[in-house]
């Protein structure tokens, strides 16, 4: 049986998937330097592995435009609607969970953002925005839009599962702290699937994370 035609046919999907898994593995097990701040190392690794590497891969290996990663507008022009449709149900679910499970006791926010509004803005806009952007580019743009472009709606759930696995491995378990991220992954996955745009998925993910924090602060 000649496997080469089969490889030739599926080589883009195979190697893209291989690249994605390898990237996540390297990220999760990248040895940290005890002499440097762990957060800074995580951010730098995220920028390099979740943003730079996919871009280089698309441009240098696949020789495709960045729109293949979702750096483009909504293809169906209902991006904002998709964002709302994704965010509202998720927040509703999150609200219910809040009252059913002891989420508030487990969900931790930096003390400084509870006492200082400027720090709250900085945290939510800059830090949460930046972190969610890294995840959007890789999991929604690279995994969902590029790699699983032919998987249909299953791609949304697959990338969410991949993201959950990644969190579990790199964060050594999933807590209530990670639930908004998982919700955001699922919701933004839907947005990305329908709009093929990372911008809208990023907007929906950020809104979910931001409003989740707000909800926590308000309910507490």
């Amino acid at each position, binding site marked *: 049986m000649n496997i*080469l*035609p089969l*490889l*030739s*046919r599926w*080589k*883009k999907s195979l*190697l893209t998937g*291989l*690249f994605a898994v*390898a*990237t996540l593995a*390297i990220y999760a097990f*990248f*040895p*940290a*330097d*005890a*002499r*440097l701040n762990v957060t800074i*190392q995580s951010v*730098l*690794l995220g920028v*390099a*592995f979740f943003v*730079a*590497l996919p871009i*280089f*891969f698309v441009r*240098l*290996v*696949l020789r495709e435009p960045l729109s293949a990663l979702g750096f483009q507008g909504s293809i169906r022009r209902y991006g904002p609607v998709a964002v709302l449709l994704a965010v509202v149900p998720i927040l509703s679910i999150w609200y219910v969970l809040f009252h059913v499970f002891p989420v508030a006791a487990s969900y931790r926010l930096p003390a400084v953002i509870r006492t200082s509004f400027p720090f709250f803005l900085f945290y939510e806009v800059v830090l949460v925005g930046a972190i969610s952007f890294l995840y959007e580019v890789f999991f929604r743009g690279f995994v969902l839009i590029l790699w699983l472009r032919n998987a249909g709606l299953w791609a949304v759930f697959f990338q969410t599962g991949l993201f959950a696995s990644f969190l579990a491995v790199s964060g050594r378990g999933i807590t209530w702290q990670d639930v908004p991220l998982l919700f955001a992954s699922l919701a933004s996955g839907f947005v990305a699937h329908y709009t093929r745009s990372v911008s809208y998925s990023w907007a929906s993910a950020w809104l979910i994370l931001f409003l989740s924090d707000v909800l926590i602060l308000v309910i507490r």
Partner: protein
Amino acid sequence: MKQNTLCRKICSAGIAAVFLLGQVFPVASVFALSIPSTSSVIGDVLSTFHVDQSSVQNVGESFNVASTKAYSPEVSLSFSPSDPKEGQKVTAKAFPLYFSNPTNQLYFTWFLKRKGGSNNPEDWKTEAMRMLANDGADVNRFLPGADDDDGYKAPYGGGDKTSVDNSWCYIKDPSNGTFYELGPLSSSPAIFTCGTDGYQASCLSAVQNIAADNSSTAAYQIDGPPNCSDNGTPSCTGTQLTRCVNPSVASGTFGLSDTVQRRVAPYTDPSTGNPVFNYVYDPAVENNMTCQGNATPPADKCSHLFPDADGYTTGDGRFTAGEERFWGTNPADPDTAKNGNKDEANVVGLGRDTFTWNYQQGDQIGLVVEGTSMLSTKHDDSSMMIMWAFSGDGCRVVHTGSYTASIKGYAVTIPTTSMGRNDFNKCLKDNLVDPLGAGQTNSKNIELDVSATPDNPTNDKTGEKSGDTVTATASITNSSKADSEVTYEWKVELSDIAGMNNPTDITGSLKSAGLLSVSKGNGLNSISIPLNMGDSILGAFASSNPVYMRITSTATENFNSQGDRTGHSDVIIKVSNSDKKIRSYAATANDSGTAVSLGHEICSDYVTNPQTAQDAMTNLDRISCRVMKNEIIGLKIDNTANDLKDFSWQIDGKSLACDTSISPDCTDGSKAFFAVTGEAGTTINVKLDAVNTSTGKAVTLTRMFNIVNPDIVIESVDKTLLWPRYLGQYVGLNGATNDDYSENFFEKASSAGIHMKARFVPSFAGNISTRQWQVNGHVEPEWAVMEINNTSTSGGNTGDVANISVSAVLAQPASTRLALQNIWGIDATKTAEVTVSKSVQVTNIAFPTAADSGVKKFYAALSGYVPPALTFAIRMILSGGLLLFTVGFVFSLIPNAPADDETRRR
């Protein structure tokens, strides 16, 4: 025959009469009737009142010379600094005494003599007083001005006096104590007159009384006493007589040979015409005659010693422009020196008891203070003696004389001197003081004091180096230098008797043995000698006990270029030189807590070659044993050979009694017990006095205990697998470089477990401890006594940190607490348990292997110098690049599907 009979009868009757008279009037009665003498009457009176005649004589003799002992004004100087450097400001401070004026009303006339400068005392005064008046002001910046009213008229005797006619100035001759009044000498010769022309008033000495002989060859005509002007009475000194002599007339001859110096002339009494005496006439003493009675007091009695500007008089109340220029004062400022005095008042030195100038080598300073003394004059007025005080030897009086004044009807003789300004100036060189001289330091020697501690040290000649350390300290009480500029030289001597006869100098031996690092050096005001002297150092005193150590310090300071100041002192210490030691034990109590006995020995460990601080502390325990509060300590001196007797224990100077009611061990006095009751940081000194049974000499031994808070130290059992973190190096007091390791942070090979042990301070505290270990918060059972061996921590990642902690409860046994209460009265509530704990961190590090050598080791070392951010970035880029390259390479190997190629072409 009849005559004989008659004679016999008469004689018998006479004898009988005498006998009867003798019975009626005894001899004593006859003498008692004699007239008593004056001296016998005075003697009887003094005897009646119990007054010793010799005492009266003594008082009288002192009274006779009391006038020469009166306290006359004096002045002393002190300098600051006492050792001035060239160009440095020096301040001389005057301390006048025995003046009736306040200090600010005295006239201080300073004079400064520069080396190689003028020899004229007027110049000396001018230089000093110009400095005072000008006070360093810049003369060139003075503007010419009108009279600024800065004159000052200086009355005699001080600023608070008034110049009147009865100002009497005096000077005391330091050689005979006589006070001389200033003024012209008495004019005696001019006021004597003889009745006959050719005769002159002369004083004659009645040294010979010879018969008149008109044949004398050189006799002078002598007449009666001369007359004295102002109705006075002529007077000669002593027994000399006042007579008129005609020295040019020699009548007749005299047969004696002494006709050259002594011309003898008969004196014919005018009333009888008979010669009565013969006198010696000496022309040389003829002027000694004085006129007593209504003599006229001399005029111009006082003067000042102020320096004068050329052509001007200082202190006359007029301070002219010429004087302003001369003294360098500001013509437009009445107080150039800004001290509250007018310029002329500063020139006369009114109240200027301090003088500051820039010292130059060879400078000498002097001072004359004018003021009114506390001595009254003999004149019939309210005057007190106006006098001068000199800073040095005073002034020898010359040109003396006297005059006689009628005071209160009595002829009073007043000694006088005609000393003038030049005479006083000649005195000034005797009153110069060198600021560096002995005059202000009073001593060329350094006053040194040496002390040493402890009082009764013990020498250890066994080689275990547990002897006390003697520290000797020298202190100087009159140093003019910083301690670092004083050279100290120490000498240590030994003797077997306290008198230090024939001592042996062991300074060199101590240095050779390393017991004394240096014995001479600048600022070396203290030395410490560990008394670990072996027989080689002790020499002839090896078997002596006690020995006496004399520590002598000689201090030398370079006082100035003219020489050094030195001083030395010593201290003698009694050193116990026995090979016996007071041994200490942890005491144990019986169950009822009514008696104690010796347990295991403590503070006896010795590390031959101490490598760590713990080793050193262990050895130090032999000198100062670390103990805990509420412990019972037993003491023992080895007396198995019965070579000691009459034991006397003391603890901190108080008797430490021990009998069988305390312990069955207390039988011969060689053992004792005490409870540690002080707080941490307190030192307990135990002293044992005993008598050597063979020599009869007293033996003194001491032992020191230091109360500490109990503590735990966690250590590695195998330092090849788990070791304290290396911190760096430090330079010890001996100059050696030592490695420094952390006590709280450890490192281990990732593959190794955690095998650690606890060490207690003091070490025997572990015996009463109950311990609980934790590793990363989990309780860890002891693997052995005081040890844990956790293997679960092996195999971790590099950088993993494990937290190890141990908590120990130190509780005295109940029997000990009962003993503390029963024997020493320490309430049991105060002897409860104590908890101590310790935590350390152990970090996994990459364990170096044999492969980590050569080139790898070089790269490893090189990477150590690269910033961690850079190495992180390189690792990140290389990882991503490798991934990208690998996937891209594989991608390029696999051919594209035709559809894809078609797609790309389109």
